């Protein structure tokens, strides 16, 4: 060691107790603030701009476990899966430039599906910002349209307060992603920090108390409705309103139809459930909405995949819209009555209002809907969800049925995007909220595997199954390594149809079978691929193999992957073509 270096080694303080503790560095403040927010897990990927933070994370590894992903998109989807399964805020950490751009898909996905996550991105040092420095991108600018809020931390003294506000924003009101962009020098500078640090700007508290008069008007309208339908979405899940919803629907015997995001918010097998509505929803749910005289929309946003052609959506219905986000109300369909409120509180208030009424009034309300229920039951008999069985080919719908049987309906199901996603939504009846994790608004292929891993981290002992397509699996399958490394024993079911199936279906139905660029027949051997990662893997080609292979995969202790070779040209039915109305529903392929 040179003499000069030796001089740099600090000498022991004479009176250690009196020595003033240096103020913490930005990176340390970040970690402390995260711990104060209850964070114990972070999904991330290091790089130059976050080196200080990673150095600090290493020191704090007994308080926060970092999960090293294999691609930043995976980190954010894992944070989402974690958040969606647990209701807690998921956290991802990535570096500047390419780290941040790789994270964008996940951020946009969380924004569309109102998932509470905080994404921390590194940034080049403050003096280099705006100079096209190495690995510099304007992260705050790029993410602005797809975050609930974002920050560029310019002063280390603000950092703690920003972290606390970010978590508050992510989880309150309509939840969503918040990005904190931290320049490298800020993470090295020192400042004092207290967990009580808060932002100077008063955050407007979202109104969650439903307006009393609106509640009683809504209750009256519901009591008097002859053909009501409850159209419920992700807001039920986010506000933890499933119990209230069930109690309210049961009290008045109201039919309920969940959106794709609302699945699990109402038990699929409940006798009041009409099944999912929308593009691939049930005949009954879509007909019910078409004929309804009162639509009770809770925690939904009248998305085009639900409404089809807006002008003919629920044409005879008055609409009561309950949502926490005022901007959702009247966006696509002007309601006749709106309640800006938390879904659970609104439903509780409605139930209280109804039960305060004369019992005979409730009975009258229920009995005047007998004909409506006859009609609904008739539709259910007429067009139940169904598929044609096969002796020599595995039917994808059958895979989901078997999965449901073998898991006793208790598994947490995460999906990718495509046909398999819709079959999972249709054929796996969900019992409870947060059992269903899918990419709804953005429809991002690649979501399934990492989302399942995140959910598995939230519930280590739960059975978590990722249902994915052969296309989407190839977008993020590298995260199998993450699952193996941290012993997060997800089960991956690849519905292998050798196609970008959903796109192929549209080409078959709406483009005269011109199969343009949807052939995935050149693919790796998924069993060998999974084994190469160290996972247990099996393949099922024939219907008689399916149960055994599924069972083996589900029973395996660790990560398992099964490659289920399904009928290549199976289609998802029913389908309401984009922009059409419910009555134009198609039930089977032409010529079948």
């Amino acid at each position, binding site marked *: 060691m040179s003499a000069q270096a030796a001089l740099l080694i600090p000498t022991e303080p004479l009176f250690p107790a009196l020595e003033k503790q240096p103020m913490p560095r930005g990176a340390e403040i970040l970690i402390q603030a995260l711990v104060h927010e209850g964070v114990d897990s972070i999904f991330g990927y290091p790089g130059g701009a976050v080196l200080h933070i990673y150095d600090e994370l290493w020191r704090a590894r007994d308080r926060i476990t970092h999960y090293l992903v294999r691609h930043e998109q995976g980190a954010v989807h894992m944070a989402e899966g974690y958040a969606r399964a647990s209701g807690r805020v998921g956290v991802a950490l990535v570096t500047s430039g390419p780290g941040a751009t790789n994270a964008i898909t996940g951020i946009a996905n969380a924004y569309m599906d109102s998932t509470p996550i905080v994404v921390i991105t590194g940034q080049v040092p403050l003096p280099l910002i705006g100079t096209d420095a190495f690995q510099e991108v304007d992260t*705050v600018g790029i993410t*602005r*349209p797809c975050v609930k809020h974002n920050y560029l931390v310019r002063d280390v003294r603000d950092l703690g307060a920003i972290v606390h506000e970010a978590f508050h*924003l992510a989880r309150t009101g309509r939840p969503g992603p918040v990005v904190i962009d931290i320049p490298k020098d800020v993470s090295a500078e020192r400042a004092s920090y207290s967990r009580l640090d808060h932002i100077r*700007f008063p955050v*407007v508290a979202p109104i969650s108390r439903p307006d009393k008069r609106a509640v009683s008007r809504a209750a009256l309208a519901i009591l008097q409705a002859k053909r009501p339908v409850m159209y419920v979405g992700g807001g039920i899940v986010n506000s933890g309103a499933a119990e209230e919803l069930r109690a309210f629907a049961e009290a008045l015997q109201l039919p309920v139809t969940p959106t794709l995001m609302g699945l699990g918010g109402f038990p699929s097998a409940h006798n009041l459930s009409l099944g999912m509505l929308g593009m691939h929803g049930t005949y009954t749910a879509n007909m019910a909405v078409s004929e309804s005289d009162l639509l009770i929309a809770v925690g939904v946003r009248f998305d085009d995949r639900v409404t089809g052609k807006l002008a003919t959506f629920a044409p005879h219905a008055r609409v009561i819209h309950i949502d926490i986000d005022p901007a959702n*109300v*009247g966006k696509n369909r002007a309601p006749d009555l709106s309640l800006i409120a938390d879904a659970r509180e609104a439903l509780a208030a409605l139930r209280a209002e109804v039960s305060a009424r004369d019992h005979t009034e409730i009975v009258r309300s229920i009995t005047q809907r007998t004909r409506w229920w006859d009609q609904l039951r008739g539709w259910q008999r007429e067009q139940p969800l169904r598929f044609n069985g096969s002796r020599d080919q595995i039917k994808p719908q059958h895979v989901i049925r078997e999965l449901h049987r073998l898991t006793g309906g208790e598994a947490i199901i995460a999906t990718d995007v495509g046909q398999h996603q819709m079959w999972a939504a249709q054929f796996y009846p969900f019992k409870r909220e947060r059992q269903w994790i899918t990419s709804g608004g953005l429809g991002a292929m690649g979501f399934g595997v990492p989302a399942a891993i995140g959910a598995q981290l939230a519930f280590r002992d739960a059975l978590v199954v990722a249902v994915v397509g052969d296309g989407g699996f190839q977008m993020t399958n590298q995260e199998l390594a993450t699952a193996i490394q941290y012993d997060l024993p997800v089960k991956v079911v690849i519905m292998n149809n050798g196609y970008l199936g959903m796109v192929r279906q549209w080409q078959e139905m709406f483009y005269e079978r011109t199969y343009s660029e949807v052939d995935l027949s050149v693919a790796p051997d998924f069993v060998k691929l999974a084994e190469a990662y160290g996972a247990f893997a099996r393949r099922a080609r024939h219907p008689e193999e399916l149960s055994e292979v599924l069972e083996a995969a589900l029973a395996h202790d660790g990560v398992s992957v099964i490659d289920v070779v399904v009928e290549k040209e199976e289609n998802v039915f029913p389908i309401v073509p984009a922009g059409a109305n419910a009555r134009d529903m198609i039930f089977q392929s032409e010529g079948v």
Partner: protein
Amino acid sequence: MNHTLSIVVADQPGELSRIVGLFSARGFNIETISVGATLDPQWARVTIVTRGDDRTIDQICKQCARLARVREVQDVTTRPHIEREMALITVNAQEGLQRQEVLNLVGVFRAKVVDISHEQIVVEASGNKEKVEAFIEMLQPLGIHEITRTGRIAIGRLSNVEVVPTAELEEDLFAVAAH
């Protein structure tokens, strides 16, 4: 229909582009925009003039209102208010008759001469949109060299009773004259 939106937002980098982004993401054109301090230096007021039906405007107001750093959003068009904008105009004004003509118009429109050369004059005009536009129209035949216009700003009237000061009356007259 034209709407004048008045938005109070934290005076911090990036906040303005959040607001503007909400308009561009929906394909809305911003006709004018102006930003200035409020009494409290932490907050700035953004005044945006845009066009749209009541429902879309209502939607955009709600979107603005949910931004974390926006304190209030008002569509001032819905209540009694006063609007002003300003223009700086370089107009040809050769010494002699032409110059006399410009100065006459400046007097009639209660505008101001702020710079002058042998060939041209820079004038400053302020008032409501109609007045400023009427003035520009009158100057046009003389040969306008350049125009810079501010965005519109607005403030609520003190009461709903129209107490119209004399200057206001004149301006209203101009509004008629312009048509």
